[in-house]
């Protein structure tokens, strides 16, 4: 796979400077805007991020305790049909994740039916036996999922990883968009971009919808943060702020008779829903890590008594574990009754002798990952690794094969990115955020695009030198400058009826359109 030409999401497969027909205007914008001007805007965005304090910490580095994630000014764009297909797959996958969690903490049918080996679930460090038999209010475990996707061709999307614990990055989706609106307004004249700023409202709605029954019409929701030294603190405060709810630390909460209260200047206030950004392990020192000062003693008891909703529920890690990941196609099929619309990346489970042998024989071609690692730590990228690194991993694999999975090195898609030597292709991935509440599954049209800024690099993690881009989802084909309300409606309708093949002819049409309403009207009729 790695040998096939890399797919560039804006410029297509041929490697030239010309853009895919549907992104013609964007291609011209990239070539016509001088790199110095792009650079100026990018620096302005980064200065604004620094001023806002949109920072993160890199563990293990002293001097960089507050860094900003590099921001790239060239956006990544999905067409409406691309997004529609992705959304369907994401909804299906997240519904399956929730069904799986409900099952493994309940009847365990999927184990009884022999779909997933029992030890993978029951001996999984992310599985919390204490909670077996406990169903969260409204039966939803993973209210907020971040599904990491990669792309290798026009229609080839793969799920690289599910994040069903406390996925982060949504604040970048929102702040990157704010920066783009301010710095590149012309792009939004060029394209009808679907808004992402509804996310905080949808999130708040989701939180309220899953409040324990009996908490009334206006349940009290809070965001629980480990504190302002946490690497994602900006996001915690940003989300609390934009939802208009309290941002609490463990010390602000206490549990009395299985009910959670927060300490306020007016006295204790009962808390119904906690969007917690603290890992399971630290959330309650009475049940898990007794040394945790980040947690709230008694919180799990309150959860098990049904008096508080934890978002996400404790124990969801068993669904996004990399060992479980390899069973996701079967899991999706088991609960949805159909094939997974979003395929997995082919995965070798090193716990299986045959897969281990294949992995050891092909280390220089594969990506090897720790089953319980995250953030790009504990990972071997065979094609770029040194001999010594490969041998270290070989030894580790032989010693503890069950801790690893291996995947082929994918030819990740690229997006034009501003580099020191002008605009050049860089590899990207994509993390959309999926909300599951009592009223169904919702996805804000957008997500976090991470870009590996080093040439040829496939590692996009912010802790490993990755950056971010705005991810624009188009409402329809390129917008015309004189578009009236009625016209854009008919345009929207048109884009729905268009198949992949037609979008090419659309691109050509856009170029020929002078932007007068008359000629546009005529063309619209012609296509319909």
């Amino acid at each position, binding site marked *: 796979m790695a040998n096939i030409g890399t797919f560039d999401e804006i410029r297509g497969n041929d490697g030239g400077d010309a853009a895919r027909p549907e992104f013609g205007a964007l291609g011209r914008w990239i070539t016509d805007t001088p790199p110095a001007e792009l650079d100026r805007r990018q620096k302005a965005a980064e200065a604004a991020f620094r001023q806002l*304090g949109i920072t993160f910490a890199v563990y293990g580095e002293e001097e960089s305790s507050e860094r900003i994630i590099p921001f790239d000014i060239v956006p990544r764009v999905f067409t409406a049909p691309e997004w529609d297909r992705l959304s369907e797959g994401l909804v299906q996958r997240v519904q399956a994740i929730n069904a799986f969690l409900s099952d493994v903490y309940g009847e365990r049918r999927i184990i009884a039916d022999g779909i997933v080996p029992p030890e993978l679930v029951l001996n999984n460090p992310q599985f919390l036996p204490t909670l077996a038999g406990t169903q969260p209010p409204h039966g939803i475990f993973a209210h907020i999922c971040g599904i990491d996707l990669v792309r290798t061709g026009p229609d080839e999307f793969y799920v690289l990883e599910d994040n069903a614990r406390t996925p982060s990055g949504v604040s970048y989706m929102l702040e990157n968009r704010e920066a783009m609106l301010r710095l590149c307004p012309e792009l939004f004249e060029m394209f009808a971009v679907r808004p992402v700023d509804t996310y905080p409202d949808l999130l708040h709605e989701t939180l309220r919808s899953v409040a324990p029954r009996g908490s009334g019409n206006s349940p009290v929701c809070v965001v629980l943060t480990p504190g302002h030294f946490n690497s994602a603190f900006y996001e915690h405060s940003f989300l609390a702020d934009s939802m208009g709810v*309290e941002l609490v630390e463990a010390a602000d909460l206490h549990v009395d008779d299985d009910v959670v209260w927060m300490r306020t*200047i007016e006295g204790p206030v009962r808390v119904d829903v906690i969007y917690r950004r603290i890992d399971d392990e630290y959330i309650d020192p009475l049940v898990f890590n007794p040394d945790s000062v980040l947690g709230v003693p008694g919180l799990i008891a309150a959860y098990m008594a049904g008096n508080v909703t934890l978002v996400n529920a404790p124990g969801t890690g068993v669904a996004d574990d990399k060992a479980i990941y390899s069973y996701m196609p079967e899991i999706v099929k088991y609960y949805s009754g159909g094939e997974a619309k979003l395929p997995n990346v082919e995965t070798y489970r090193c716990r299986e002798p045959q897969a281990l042998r294949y992995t050891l024989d092909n280390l220089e071609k594969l990506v090897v990952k720790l089953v319980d690692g995250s953030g790009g730590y504990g990972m071997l990228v065979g094609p770029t690794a040194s001999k010594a690194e490969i041998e270290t991993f070989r030894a580790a694999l032989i010693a503890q094969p069950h801790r690893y999975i291996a995947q082929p090195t994918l030819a990740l898609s690229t997006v034009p990115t501003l580099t020191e030597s002008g605009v050049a292709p860089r590899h990207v991935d994509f993390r959309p955020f999926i909300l599951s509440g009592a009223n169904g599954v919702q996805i804000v049209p957008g997500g976090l695009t991470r870009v590996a800024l080093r040439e040829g690099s496939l590692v996009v993690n912010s802790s490993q030198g990755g950056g971010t881009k705005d991810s624009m989802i188009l409402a329809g084909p390129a917008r015309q400058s004189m578009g009236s309300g009625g016209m854009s409606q008919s345009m929207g309708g048109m884009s729905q009826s268009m198949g992949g093949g037609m979008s090419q002819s659309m691109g050509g049409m856009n170029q020929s359109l002078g932007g007068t309403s008359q000629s546009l009207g005529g063309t619209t009729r012609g296509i319909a």
Partner: protein
Amino acid sequence: MLSRTAASLYWVGRYVERAEFTARLIEATIRLDSLSPRPAGEGAWESALLVTAANDAFSASGEERSPANVSRYLTLDRSNPSSIRACLDAARGNARAVRTALSREAWEAINRAWLGLRDRSSVSGGPGTLTLVETLKAEARGFEGAVHRMLRNEGSWFLMLGAAIERADNTARLIDVKYHLLLPEGELVGGVIDRDQWTTILHTVSAVNAYRLLYPNGLRPGQVADLLIMRGELPRSLAASTDEVVNLLNLIGKRTGRQGEADRLARQRQNALNRATIQGVIASGLHEYLSAFIIENGRIDQAISQQFRFA
């Protein structure tokens, strides 16, 4: 509102106010220093240390008491809890922990001031210090403006309450350090040095023109004390800060239903100030009066943190 949030906002208010006060003090001291013949100039820096209660700590550092050293100590030294840098570190730390309770503008003003100072290791002499002080004052004004545009609820009230308590403390200390200059009472200020000293005090609380407006008969120590202690029109006077504390506690009490010892102490102080005259205060000992005021201010601070469960 979370008790922790209220506590942090209160301290953000205090630290920003303290940073600004230190900045004004440095600015006024540089002015006095350049106006005065030696060794009066060095006296100027010594009294700046006294006002910020940093004299002993500076002596302990063993550094020479040169204008450059003292001004660096007051601006950038982390070991001095009243230095502009230490105040901004603390203000930003608190602000960051509760930034959801601050408006974006208020947070940005603090963060910008902090970023501006973060990488400075020296102030490159008088002009450098003055630039730094100017910037800081502008950011503090921006912060104050942002606070006044925040929602009129507990959030902005706790910020302002912290600032009012801090301001009362700072002004009282400022007068106390110069109290000996207020004697003998009623005399016209004699000598160039004395006049400069007075102008310095007025500069520190930005009241030079206000004084001329309110007291057309020239610089008299008793009148300077009157302005800084009794006149409610001057925002940095003890009377104005005292009124502000009472009013803010009132607003918070009405909103949260929580009133108590802090309200009682604050009103008591207000009544006492209303009854007092500057002649009476000076007659019974200005230094004693100011010391008692500073202690009382600390008591109100304690009562506030108990009443709203800061700890």
